[in-house]
């Protein structure tokens, strides 16, 4: 058994799950059946598999949004559980991008992006500078004051990406980030996602159905029936 903080060669393990079991509806719906996985710092990992195989659940466990029935989860060497400092985890260590952008429609693009900085109590000047930096990289500078309803699907997902990276997390968890986009937008958002994680040195763990996108990650992990079946290097 490896410790979560243990290094593998030159790479540090930042996400580590060991023998994870998770079920819903009082145990009648088993979702994870003994999952073991490790992700190294600065690498991008794609989780592939059919719907219901446990990809989203695994991401939720790494974000501290849910807890396993059995097994252990470590993020940056710290075990995640109900008594962990989950606010610290969500505010500074992990960013989350969903399939649906999950933006607040009545706020502007800029205001949506600033939500994590408000939660973390980051001063306005620093937050604004970071917002402008990310907006520049994602091509959203001219849309900052626009309401979410006025943005295209691709722009909304780029906004969600900006929001997830606002507090400079070292880990990005993405649950089907291009799943609701057309092929062209999907490709553009995914390119941007890879560029950003590379530029910021972020570790990416991404659940996706799209094998063509998944193969562009550093590693590809197959999931079936709540188990990791194979590690495939792209």
């Amino acid at each position, binding site marked *: 058994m490896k410790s979560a903080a243990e290094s593998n060669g030159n790479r540090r393990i930042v996400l580590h799950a060991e023998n994870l079991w998770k079920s819903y509806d009082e145990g009648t719906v088993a979702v994870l059946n003994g999952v073991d996985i490790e992700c190294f710092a600065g690498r991008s990992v794609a989780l592939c598999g059919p719907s219901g195989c446990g990809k989203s659940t695994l991401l939720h466990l790494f*974000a501290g*949004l849910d807890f396993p029935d059995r097994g252990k989860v470590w993020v940056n060497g710290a075990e995640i559980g109900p008594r962990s400092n989950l606010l610290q985890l*969500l*505010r500074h260590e992990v960013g989350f991008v969903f399939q649906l952008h999950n933006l*607040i429609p*009545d*706020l502007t693009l800029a205001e949506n992006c*600033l939500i994590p900085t408000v*939660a973390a109590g980051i001063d306005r000047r620093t937050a604004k500078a970071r917002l402008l930096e990310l907006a520049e990289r994602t091509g959203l500078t001219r849309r900052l004051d626009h309401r979410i309803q006025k943005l295209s699907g691709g722009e909304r997902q780029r906004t969600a990406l900006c929001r997830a990276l606002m507090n400079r997390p070292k880990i990005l968890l993405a649950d089907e980030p291009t799943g609701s986009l057309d092929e062209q937008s999907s490709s553009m958002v995914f390119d941007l996602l890879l560029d950003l994680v590379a530029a910021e040195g972020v570790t990416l763990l991404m659940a996706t159905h799209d094998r063509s996108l998944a193969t562009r990650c550093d590693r590809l992990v197959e999931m079936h029936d709540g188990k990791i079946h194979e590690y495939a290097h792209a």
Partner: protein
Amino acid sequence: MIFLKLIMTNLRRHRVRSLISVAGITFSVAAMLTVVTILQGAIGMFSRILSNDSEIIVFERDVSDLFFSNVPADAAAQISSWPLVAHANPVLFGIVSSEGHPIITCFGVTSTDARIQKAEWLQGDRNSFAQRSDGVVLGARAAEFLSASLNSQVQIGHATFHVIGILKTANGFEDGGVFMPLGSAQAFFHKEGTSSVITVKLRNKDDAATFKEMVRTKFPNLIALEDTEFTRSYSQFRILTATAWAVGGCGLLLGGLGVANTMIMSVFTRIREIAILRVNGFSHTQIGGVIFGESAVVSVLGAIAGLLFGTCFLYALKLIPALDGYVDTNLHPLLVLTVLLLALLTGVAGALYPAVYAMRVRAVEALRFE
């Protein structure tokens, strides 16, 4: 700023619902303000009747109502003769009915009483008071509703009286009352040899404690209270005040239920948003702050509108001739502050359950919520 916008977002999103909620608090605050102000005005008026050119009131100990108080005439005579007393006036209160007027307040007073000597006489001569046993002086409003003028005959209760004067006072009770010579009032109300109270003016206000002690010693069945003490301790006033606050409180409770309903709906309709805020690092306290902030905005807006509405309503009531002198439109700052604070507390209490519910939302479940 964003926090404030998150608070305002839902109110703007469901404008009609928010307006109904604000209106609930508005009417509650206006009702509380109106009821309490009118009753405090009435209490103030009654206090001023007692404190007319006097600072101490003497009445029968342990009576629940001044109308049941019997103060012997010799007590008034003795108290008048005390060196520290400037003047002491016995006053007899009585209530009678007349055709079409179920309640007419009667004041049995002596001719030296300030109510007679210092009032503005619209008709008649103040020196004629108590010259004839059936002669009465009417307050201006009483004269109006009894359709009486100088030298006319009025039926009051079972007897007919001759109007010898009409006077104008700023006090609604007095303006709608009938002033009789003390002896006539005693005979009319079958209270010969007694009065309801003695109103006392001291030569030196600092002698109040000595005076009260003298009354306690000489007349164990009587009690002397300074006007402020009386207003504070008189059971009828306390009952009236408590009733006013209870009625107003019920109004606010209903307003609070409206806020609670709005906030519950607010939380249920934005449960996904709450989950998004959680995933983006919002703490339970911050989530609760958004919900409580929303209810506080509703409460403050409702309270301000309620204060304006209530004040306008009081001014409108004051314009009704029948209520002239009964309504005090002076809003006491303490009352305004209390009503505002109660409205705010009501809003916060109304948001308590929704806020706790919102704080307990599990992001992972709420994100599945459609």
